[in-house]
């Protein structure tokens, strides 16, 4: 295991995801929940069983006027590097502030 040392060292995937989503979407609400443990018996999850599955809830005005498919694509695009490096699946709830009633 790599030890994190001080600032700028090794960020968890969740932390990287948070940074990427927050800065690009300027989210009002951004919940990232690691649910990898639910998939522990999954064929995909072997040696590197950490941080493979997440639930993400984003409320952002950037979703205004965008279809659900487009919103999800926006999130997927932002997390492309993660998807190519072991992130297996994310469950996405993407709403606008209006839709969320906040």
């Amino acid at each position, binding site marked *: 295991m790599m030890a994190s040392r001080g600032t700028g060292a090794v960020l968890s995937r969740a932390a990287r995801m948070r940074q990427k989503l927050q800065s690009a979407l300027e989210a009002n609400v951004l919940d990232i929940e690691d649910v990898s443990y639910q*998939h522990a018996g999954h064929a995909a999850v072997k040696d590197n069983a950490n941080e493979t599955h997440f639930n993400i809830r984003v409320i952002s005005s950037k979703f205004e006027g965008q279809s659900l498919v487009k919103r999800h694509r926006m999130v997927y695009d932002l997390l*492309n590097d993660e998807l190519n490096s072991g992130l297996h699946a994310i469950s996405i709830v993407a709403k606008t502030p209006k839709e969320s009633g906040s």
Partner: protein
Amino acid sequence: MAAASLAGSSLPLPVSERPRTARVSAFSRARAASPMTWRVVSIGSPRARSGRCVAAAAGGGGGLAPAMRETLDKVVTSNKVVLFMKGTKDFPQCGFSHTVVQILRSLDVPFETLDVLANEALRQGLKEYSSWPTFPQLYIDGEFFGGCDITVEAYKSGELQETLEKAMCS
């Protein structure tokens, strides 16, 4: 039929199951009507192929080959409803794929499924074709409808049923 036209193409796609009318059992109806639960842990079927269900190893794109695009154009229009999934209708290899199969079955629509685990070229090609990095991927009337989350949400709101009805009548 899709299978026939694909047989001669350079990229044989395994049509995992012949199109047929989905059976609806009281069980699947009851399940679908209840709040969706994410039952992923219990998916281990005896046919689970370990190591096949790994995350995208795809590098940085590189463009979709025209032949692949053409083939996929045909596949997604080969049936009103086409589901690209992990595993088959009867043996889904992933909880998200399983969920979408359950929804489609509960709605009593005929749908065709293709197993992306059985064809790596298909799997990688689709990610780019759909601009969607994960599976399942649902196509209705040749249009990308969404993945699992969107399908579940549209099912709850009734939009999925509407879209399917329109597709079936067109």
